[in-house]
């Protein structure tokens, strides 16, 4: 499996670097954060997908610094049984990806054999519906984890990296692949080494297919992935690469593709030893350009898949990458215009820890800048929706993520739905327009009034469990209330029903920020 071999690969690389003294251990003694006791709820609100009563009680019990440390280095997550049961019942849990994709591919091929027009049309519809259903499962699983996983930071970072290494489910059959991409390529590395994460995305069929690298072959160059790999995934557009670097990286990436079937391509005899198949990932030497290349000012000896590893090494250890990733993390977690000195310190940690993501995050979370920024970062739509449901229902597990998915659609930030590979904006100007605000208030009303359908099951015999929103709870009276401005308090006093009180609280400016 790719995960295992990569882990061994990175351990070996780390061991080699240790001898040279270049590999610091990722573990650091828990540092004291700059977060003051009265900022606890605010800090939890930022590090988690949104503060709620149970998270607050846990952190109170163990202390914020210990809580943060557990978030940075989490144990395997145990979800509440009601949430885990929903995930366990999913097709994407029950069937290995290879089986799922082969069954769907067979379904698609069978359609071609149908000769009656009407039958063909309904078979095509059934196939498309099945693709949609599988993608929706992935999105539902993602939201359930965001809502209920004790490893809140890992889930936030999973969204962050899914956005950074964005793929669009609308292309080809990516709807079958996105769940596996998130679960196997991104999530396991979300708090690990950046290089491992980058390598895992590069070897996943979702990314290879999305950015057309399966089309990229010797003398038939497709430079789409090569360009985005440098511009969006590593160096950043100002990272100092040229059009020639794009073309050379595209040549290096020739032959990197996917094979969703069971057969293997015919490979020239002398190149057979170079053929690689790991799950759905395939390196086909027939399609690779074996000429020498020059990439980022240095020669790359033409020799096959090892060129790709060399390129990933260069890209992930480049100073421009350290800065680009650090700044993006700071934009997401601290401020739209993060303090340059903070970004510098994070980039320094990135460089000295060989891209250890948890270490970079620790530098950020323990800074004064972080503590001072609490309550000021505007929530993007995913954050708004997830935090509102977490706050409203705490650990009472919802039975239907459907309404949340449709709210995210309405606010133009659906999971796996960004059409372009740059990912969604992370700043206020992207999400605070008049049209967006109005939509938020309508969602606030849907959640606050308790009839949004979050507790209504899907299926032939839907059942609905009564679950009235509980926003006026201990957490509210202990901490949230203190942070509300006078105008918000006044409006809350004028609410004519508990439902309206909820709607106003979820619509307040304080709840739009984290």
């Amino acid at each position, binding site marked *: 499996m790719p995960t295992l071999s990569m882990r061994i690969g990175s351990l070996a690389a780390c061991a080699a670097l240790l001898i040279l003294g270049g590999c610091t251990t990722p573990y650091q003694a828990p540092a004291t954060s700059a977060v003051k006791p009265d900022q606890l709820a605010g800090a939890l609100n930022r590090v988690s997908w949104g503060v709620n009563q149970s998270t607050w009680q846990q952190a109170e019990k163990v202390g914020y610094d210990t809580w943060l440390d557990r978030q940075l280095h989490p144990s395997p997550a145990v979800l509440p049984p009601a949430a885990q049961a929903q995930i366990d019942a999913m097709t994407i849990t029950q069937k290995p990806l290879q089986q799922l994709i082969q069954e769907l591919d067979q379904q698609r091929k069978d359609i071609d054999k149908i000769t009656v027009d009407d039958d063909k049309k309904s078979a095509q519809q059934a196939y498309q519906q099945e693709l949609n259903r599988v993608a929706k499962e992935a999105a539902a699983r993602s939201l359930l984890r965001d809502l209920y996983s004790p490893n809140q930071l890992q889930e936030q970072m999973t969204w962050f990296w899914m956005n950074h290494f964005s793929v669009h489910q609308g292309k080809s059959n990516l709807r079958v692949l996105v769940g596996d991409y998130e679960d196997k390529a991104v999530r396991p590395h979300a708090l690990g080494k950046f290089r491992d994460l980058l390598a895992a995305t590069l070897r996943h069929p979702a990314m290879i297919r999305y950015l057309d690298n399966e089309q990229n072959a010797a003398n038939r*160059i497709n430079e789409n992935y090569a360009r985005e790999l440098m511009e969006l995934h590593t160096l950043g557009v100002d990272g100092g690469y040229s*059009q020639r670097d794009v073309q050379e990286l595209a040549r290096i990436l020739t032959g990197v593709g996917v094979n969703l079937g069971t057969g293997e391509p015919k490979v020239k005899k002398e190149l057979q030893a170079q053929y690689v198949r790991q799950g759905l990932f395939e390196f086909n030497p027939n399609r690779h350009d074996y000429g020498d290349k020059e990439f980022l000012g240095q020669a790359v000896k033409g020799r096959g898949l090892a060129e790709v590893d060399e390129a990933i090494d260069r890209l992930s250890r480049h100073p421009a990458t350290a800065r680009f990733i650090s700044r993006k993390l700071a934009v997401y977690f601290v401020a739209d215009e993060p303090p340059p000195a903070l970004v510098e310190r994070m980039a320094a940690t990135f460089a000295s820890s060989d891209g250890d993501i948890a270490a970079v995050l620790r530098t950020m979370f323990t800074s004064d800048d972080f503590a001072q920024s609490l309550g000021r970062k505007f929530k993007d739509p995913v954050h708004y929706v997830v935090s509102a449901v977490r706050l409203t229902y705490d650990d009472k597990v919802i039975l239907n993520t459907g309404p949340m998915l449709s709210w995210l659609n309405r*606010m133009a930030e659906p999971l796996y739905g960004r059409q372009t590979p740059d990912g969604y904006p992370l700043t206020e100007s992207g999400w605070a327009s008049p049209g967006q605000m*109005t939509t938020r*208030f309508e969602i606030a009303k849907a959640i606050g009034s308790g009839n949004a359908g979050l507790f209504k099951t899907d299926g032939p015999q839907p059942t609905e469990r009564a679950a009235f929103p509980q926003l006026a709870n201990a957490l509210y009276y202990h901490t949230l209330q203190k942070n509300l401005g006078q105008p918000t308090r006044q409006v809350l006093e004028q609410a004519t029903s508990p439902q309206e009180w909820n709607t106003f609280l979820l619509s307040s400016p304080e709840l739009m920020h984290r």
Partner: protein
Amino acid sequence: MKRRTLLQSLAALPVATMAGKLWAAPASKTRLLFVFMRGGYDATNLLVPISSQFYYQARPNIAVPKPGDDLNAALPVNADWGLHPALRETIHPLFTIGQVAFVPFAGTEDISRSHFETQDSIELGQALDGTRDYRSGFLNRLATTLNADRANAISFTDQLPLIMQGGAQLPNMALRSIGKPGVDARQAKMIASMYGDTALARQVRDGFVVREDVMKEMIGEMDAANRNAITAKGFELEARRIAKLMKEKYNIGFVDVGGWDTHVGQGGATGYLARRFEELGRGLAAYAKEMGPDWKDTVVVVVSEFGRTFRENGNRGTDHGHGSVYWVLGGGVAGGRVRGEQIRLEQNTLFQNRDYPVLNEYRAMFGGLFARMYGLDAGQVERIFGTKGQDLGLI
């Protein structure tokens, strides 16, 4: 719906002047709709260089045939250019009556060939060598220059695009699908009051006002739908709704259309790209029709961040290029022709042996166009674009 109540409650807001401004019909009859084709569309197959033998050599699989009797042949434009046949029923007739002009070799000097970088460049409309202000798009600066009595701008998108961000707080609302508002008038007023003097106050109030505006304009459409009238779909429906609002309320609009990044299998006279052209053409023609008599005072500009490689790639698609072809449409446009600086397309005239050079820089071009449309002086044009305008004789 209690429209009257909402109006009264909005009037009671401290920013009644702002609300009043949004309600007022545009004072200036001049209207501008800006359409952004995101993804870098293959302009070479839109405005086909039919006199270039090199074009037919460079695109063995995806070239559009020279004008002729075949339905798949390019439509006549002039001796050098033909139009993609997917626009036969929509844009070509408008071109023939002189209401469409094309400007090839148009674009920005940005040569990153990055979608995102170049889209930002264009939307900002600022010089590339100076300090850039990332919060100031050029349609926002145009709206500010024209002042409240002459400009009433809106973006027909879910999010406010960079081109509309800046000093003037402009509203947005996507028109693809419209639902009835759930928050009632009293609640809207109270929610707005929570935002008191916060930085979001104006967005919140504008959002409620625009929503009401849109609902009022769409009543006719909903009635028609209830009577089982056949309604348009996709971009055509969106474009008709945009026209309705721009007739009544707004005189500067923005909308974007995606799906142009054709690295693989883009097709030629038929196929994927042809279908995108057809949908866009239908929408623009529907917009022109819906505007009715106001079409004569309307200018529609269609742009994309860059063109694509002149040669097709190994996958019968095209990769990121440089110069593009911009469209200018309107009842008062001096159309029926190809405008701006042009060169013969041969291997040695390609930019970096790869794509179209930019001979018509977009800031100068739009500066010249807006100067004519709005009677701007040279100083105003320079304040918007940081450069002098160049009049390409588009209107």
